[in-house]
């Protein structure tokens, strides 16, 4: 800024705002004050640099806390004889209006200029008000320059004028003028008033008691009348005659456009031009003379018809028959900023030679580019953290960079009025409606107008969370200091809030996420006005204001962890589209886990629930969708991989829950199976999977149980034709036939089956292999055959066969009503789920039921909750009891049991039961039901087919191909070495379908890796963690026979499901994740071909992305 103090002759390129400062210095100004605001900021900043350089003796500059303070301090200096200047943006004059209006009455001692920089087009403002009306309102002389040189010259001229008239002068700029740069010739420094620094008491004129004010008003009018005469002459008015009868009156930047167009078309002589640089009061005589000579005039001025109205009044008053073109004739707009085309079009009404844009080409539309918060902006962190705690508040925002929080991903701006209104309007909103209200205000804005607003909110008991975004600078206008930092004194915002009586206060670094989240949480739950000072310096400020801001660390994305899923390489990835809400759940979990200091097994390659599932269904995924309230998303994810969702949601033995990480953390596992039920209940839709491109191949599936149905679904998706041959009269297999309704509502299971059939399965019921057709028949007609024939033959129990009163449990379950069990005693032999179903079914029919099992309770293959339920329902148990002989005596079945004990272990790891010598005992019962399992009936139906069976009679298959000993004949499920659970049957069906697909397409059957068991990594120590317990399904009995327990509504179920899903800690990585983009919106992160990438030159190392990344994939590195 050295140049600005130079002596003439000197000329240099200056911004108009800088030229104004030079003008002020030439004029001998010794005091300037401002509150920064675009487009006026550079005036104050330049003064500030001059002040700090000390090059101008006796000069003082102040950043005022607001515009009112700026004008009032200027009043003080002026009354003490100093020449002074206050500058502000247009809306700043609203704040200062109280002082401004009366200042005109008081008048000046030292000359004073007040600069108002208007913003037509709202480049950087909340409105485009026309402050020329303020001059009229205040009876204040107003000057409007059109170039940097003229601005400097007019300022120099304004000071003696101000002193001569004893009135302050308004210098009105617009953005285009303020931010115009041009060559400025410097003039000499004028001498300063000699009586400066002396205040002469003059209460008669300086204390505006009503009596004095009444007298000062007419005095002011007289001053203005004198100004009018002066404004009729150069340099305030310039007249260029024309040859014709048309004239143009122009002000401000429009003067430049008009002259440019006249020059461009070389038509200068055709229209007369009256340029007005003194626009209040307008010189009436000069205008009347102009109108008389040129009876058709165009008035060219931006915004309101300020001059035009007065020209019309002059013409009317003088009775001049003139035609006035402008805004009232719709030749020029009353809104927005002018450009050359707009002015040229209006001028063509006077001068037809002007043709606008006739030779130009129209450029195509380009996507918009709205401004965004900078990379590393601490507001980003504040917004992300506040939203994490209070996702759906009403956001009352204020004037500053942080208004950009309106954009995605935050969308945290619901109301914006003016400086400080976030606190007051937001406070009112907090009591005017029910939702929580959070107000955001910058540090500078807080001191500007937030202080009194905070007092208002506390005094009136509003219920507001005020977040002061303290970046220790006034960032948007160019990093000016404010009372919170960088000035003579530093004022602690939190202490102010405390002193005012805020209910909760905190000063937190928003990147210290645990503290920030907790502060917001505490503030949100504290009634009254809470104030959080979110303090982190502006990343731009350092560089721009010359302070150190050297970036020493940056972040990069580790490709192997980003968008990673343990299922990805194996082809098990869910392929679900990126889902913002789900991302939120994952990020939320991560941030809050930091909060409770959970040393989570972060970024497990594969969540254990998924790894434990035989079909590797991503439970973390659909639980995440449920937690996000997206039940459709959850269902879609489930159905894509699991053809029989309801069947599994009701009867699956849920290995996922047994593997849940929460078990190891001392908590109940997430109720995954029940959440699947919720996903189905609220999100089910048909047609998630569509038939594939037809291959022309046909596959026969024998058996319509879980394995066969699952295979059919996948085969059709792969494009093959499928026919299911089912021996019974309905699809569904063993679960359909024997599982009691109270465990598996048939209506739900049937929806699963219908969805598969609707994909286009050809279903042939009552068609049994070995009876109605042979395998050879199928081999002839189909390209491949899949045998899913299940286990149909009851296992034999030595000594029990043929004894009257001993019945097979499966037969009983198939048709329970065939028996009348009311009041009768029933013994059930077995410890599996069939035994439990049998016992509970019999109990429900009124029987006294006792279960006999040869091992102890812990060794029961039945689901623990089923055992528990049976006990609760009154079924009694005799453990370590193995039947030795059966006899029917007088209608009673007498069973002799051996008392057993467990010694050593069996092949499956359970204790081996051996009889205790002499421990036998006898029990009598009306009926004995044996539920000891079934075996394959393959031998009978496959006789002569060439298919090899194993020792137990099951179909032997190669697990790598699912193929039997006969080429093209595949098998799966319980009938083929299956493991006897529904989910394993589904897995076999799917694995076989995949193998058949490969066989039909390549000639080689292969079970893809995705159906092989996943090795589960487990490398974490149970951390400190507050166990919550299940929020759903505490008592399984409540859930039986119905979708959700009695007394609940759909909404209860939905809400509880969301809450329960929220317990999932999302311990695995996810390949759908774009959290860094979705949660921060940082412009340094782009979506590359392989996933998100961080642009090195844009990253400033704030680390917010690394904080939110649930995959732990964002890594810090050092830079030179």
């Amino acid at each position, binding site marked *: 800024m050295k140049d600005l103090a130079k002596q003439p002759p000197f*000329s*240099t*390129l200056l*911004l108009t705002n800088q030229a104004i400062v030079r003008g002020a210095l030439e004029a001998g100004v010794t005091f300037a004050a401002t509150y920064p605001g*675009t*487009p006026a*900021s*550079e005036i104050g900043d330049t003064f500030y640099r001059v002040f700090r350089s000390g090059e101008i003796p006796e000069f003082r500059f102040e950043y005022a806390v607001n515009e009112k303070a700026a004008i009032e301090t200027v009043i003080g200096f002026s009354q003490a004889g100093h020449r002074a200047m206050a500058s502000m943006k247009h809306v700043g004059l609203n704040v200062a209006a109280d002082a401004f209006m009366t200042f005109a009455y008081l008048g000046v001692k030292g000359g004073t200029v007040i600069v108002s920089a208007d913003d037509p087009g709202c*480049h*950087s403002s909340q409105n485009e008000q026309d402050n020329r009306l303020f001059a009229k309102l205040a009876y204040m002389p107003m000057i409007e320059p*059109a*170039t940097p040189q003229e601005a400097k010259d007019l300022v120099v001229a304004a000071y003696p004028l101000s002193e001569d008239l004893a009135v302050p002068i308004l210098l009105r700029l617009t*953005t*285009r003028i303020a*931010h*115009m*740069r*041009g*060559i400025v010739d410097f003039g000499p420094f004028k001498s300063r008033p000699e009586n400066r620094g002396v205040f002469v008491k003059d209460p008669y004129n300086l204390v505006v008691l009503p009596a004095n004010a009444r007298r000062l008003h007419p005095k002011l009018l007289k001053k203005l009348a004198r100004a009018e005469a002066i404004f009729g002459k150069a340099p305030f008015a310039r007249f260029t005659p024309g040859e014709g009868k048309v004239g143009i009156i122009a002000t401000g*930047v429009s003067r*430049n*456009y008009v*002259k*440019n167009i006249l*020059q*461009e078309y070389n038509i200068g002589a055709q229209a007369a031009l009256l340029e007005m640089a003194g626009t209040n009061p307008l010189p009436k005589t000069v205008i009347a003379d102009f109108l008389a000579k040129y009876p058709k005039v165009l008035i060219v001025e931006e915004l309101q018809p300020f001059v035009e109205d007065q020209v019309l009044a002059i013409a009317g008053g003088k009775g001049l028959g003139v035609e006035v073109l402008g805004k009232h004739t719709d030749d020029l707009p009353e809104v927005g900023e002018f*450009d*050359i*085309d707009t002015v040229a079009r209006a001028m063509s009404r006077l001068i037809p030679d002007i043709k*606008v*844009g*006739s*030779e*130009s*080409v*129209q*450029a*195509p539309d*380009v*996507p918009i*580019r*709205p*401004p*965004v*918060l900078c990379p590393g902006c601490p507001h980003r962190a504040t917004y992300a953290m506040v939203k994490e705690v209070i996702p759906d508040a009403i956001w009352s925002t204020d004037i500053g*960079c942080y208004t*950009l929080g309106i*954009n*995605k991903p935050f969308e945290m701006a619901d109301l914006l009025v003016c400086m400080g209104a976030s606190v007051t309007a937001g406070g009112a909103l907090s009591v005017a409606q029910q939702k929580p209200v959070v107000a955001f205000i910058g540090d500078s804005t807080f001191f500007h107008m937030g202080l009194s607003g905070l007092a208002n909110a506390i005094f009136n008991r509003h219920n507001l969370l005020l977040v002061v975004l303290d970046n220790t600078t006034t960032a*948007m*206008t160019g990093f000016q200091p404010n009372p919170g930092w960088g000035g003579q004194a530093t004022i602690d915002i939190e202490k102010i809030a405390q002193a005012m009586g805020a209910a909760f206060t905190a000063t937190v670094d928003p990147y210290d996420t645990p503290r920030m989240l907790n502060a917001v949480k505490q503030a949100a739950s504290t009634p009254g006005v809470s104030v959080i000072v979110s303090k982190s310096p502006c990343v731009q400020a350092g560089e721009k204001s010359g302070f150190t801001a050297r970036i020493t660390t940056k972040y990069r994305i580790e490709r192997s962890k980003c968008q990673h899923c343990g299922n990805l390489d194996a082809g098990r990835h869910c392929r679900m589209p*990126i889902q913002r809400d789900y991302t939120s759940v994952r990020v939320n979990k991560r941030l809050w886990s930091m909060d409770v200091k959970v040393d989570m097994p972060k970024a497990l390659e594969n969540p254990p629930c998924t790894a434990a599932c035989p079909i590797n269904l991503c439970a973390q995924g659909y639980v995440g969708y449920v937690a996000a309230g997206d039940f459709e998303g959850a269902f879609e994810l489930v159905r894509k991989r699991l053809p029989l969702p309801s069947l599994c949601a009701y009867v699956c033995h849920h290995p996922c829950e047994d593997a849940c990480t929460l078990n190891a953390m001392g908590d109940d596992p997430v109720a995954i199976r029940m959440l699947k039920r919720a996903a189905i209940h609220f999100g089910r839709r048909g047609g998630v999977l569509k038939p594939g491109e037809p291959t022309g191949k046909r596959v026969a599936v024998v058996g319509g149980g879980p394995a066969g149905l699952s295979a059919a679904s996948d085969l059709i998706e792969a494009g093959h034709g499928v026919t299911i041959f089912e021996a019974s009269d309905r699809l569904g297999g063993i679960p359909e036939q024997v599982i009691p309704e109270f465990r598996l509502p048939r209506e739900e299971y049937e929806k699963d089956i219908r969805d598969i059939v609707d994909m286009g399965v050809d279903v042939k019921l009552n068609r049994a292999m070995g009876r109605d057709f042979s395998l050879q028949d199928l081999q002839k007609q189909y390209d491949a055959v899949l045998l899913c024939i299940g286990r149909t033959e009851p296992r034999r129990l030595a000594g029990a066969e043929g004894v009257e009163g001993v019945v097979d449990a499966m037969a009983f379950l198939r048709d329970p009503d065939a028996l009348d069990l009311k009041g009768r005693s029933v013994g059930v032999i077995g410890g599996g789920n069939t035994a439990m179903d049998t016992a509970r079914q019999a109990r429900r029919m009124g029987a006294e039921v006792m279960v006999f099992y040869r091992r102890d309770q812990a060794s029961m293959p039945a689901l623990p909750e089923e055992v528990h339920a049976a006990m609760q329902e009154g079924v009694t148990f005799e453990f370590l009891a193995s039947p030795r002989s059966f006899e029917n005596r007088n209608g009673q079945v007498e069973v002799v049991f051996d008392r057993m004990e467990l010694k050593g272990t069996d092949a499956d790891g359970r204790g081996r039961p051996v009889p205790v010598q002499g421990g036998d005992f006898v029990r009598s019962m009306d009926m004995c039901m044996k539920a000891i399992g079934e075996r394959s009936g393959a031998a009978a139906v496959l006789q002569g087919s060439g298919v090899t069976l194993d020792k137990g009679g099951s179909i032997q298959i190669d697990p790598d191909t699912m193929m039997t000993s006969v080429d093209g004949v595949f098998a799966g499920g319980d009938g083929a070495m299956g493991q006897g659970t529904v989910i394993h049957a589904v897995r076999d069906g799917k694995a076989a379908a995949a193998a058949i697909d490969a066989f039909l397409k390549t000639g080689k059957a292969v079970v893809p890796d995705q159906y092989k068991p996943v090795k589960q990594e487990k490398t974490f120590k149970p951390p400190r963690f507050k166990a919550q317990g299940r929020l759903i399904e505490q008592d399984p009995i409540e859930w039986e026979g119905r979708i959700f327990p009695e007394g609940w509504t759909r909404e209860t179920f939905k809400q509880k499901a969301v809450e329960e899903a929220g317990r999932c800690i999302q311990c695995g990585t996810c390949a759908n994740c*774009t959290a860094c*983009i*979705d949660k921060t919106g940082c*412009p340094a*992160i*782009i*979506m590359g071909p392989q996933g998100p990438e961080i642009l090195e*030159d844009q990253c400033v190392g704030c680390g917010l992305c690394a904080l939110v990344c649930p995959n732990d994939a964002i890594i810090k590195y050092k830079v030179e």
Partner: protein
Amino acid sequence: MAFRIQIVGVGGHGVILVARVLSQCAADAGMHCVMSEVHGMSQRGGIVHSSVVIDGGDAPLIGTGQADLLVASEAGEALRQGGLLKAGGTLVLNELTVLPPHMVGTDDAYPSVDEVTRWFTEHGFRVWRVQGSRIAEDAGSIRVMNSAMLGTIVKSGVLPFDMKQMTEALITVTRGRLREKNIAALHRGFEECRMEAL
């Protein structure tokens, strides 16, 4: 003879500096010059544009079809303001596209450098392309990308300024440790650009 130059780009690209150096060149050559720039909110990653009018009066804006030269640090922004060029005008284009942040992760189309070049050449404009980002990285700071464009402007021959004048103006306007890097980039921008026209 008047020269009207529109400089466009994205906040942070140094658009204003290009305009200031061109204005300085004009002032040093004793020509009349006005320049218009935008400040404040517009700079936060948004569109930045600046006009320089040399010996063409005091109007700081350029009308449709008035610009002799369009200088763009980003391809999409060049296209957005393509209508300002007069028939036969010239575009100096930095080979860079910056996707607006709201488009990240979407499939919406955004014009490429080649598409933008094609549009201008097809409409009869000359296009001078320069890999400013690469030159700036070589020079040691991405922030001197704009100086590479200044070199290309000289090379295009649209303005009556030579490398000596441009270098002097650059020295006048820039400060501190980036000055050397700016000058290096200026020279490479002059040498390594290429012209495309139909």
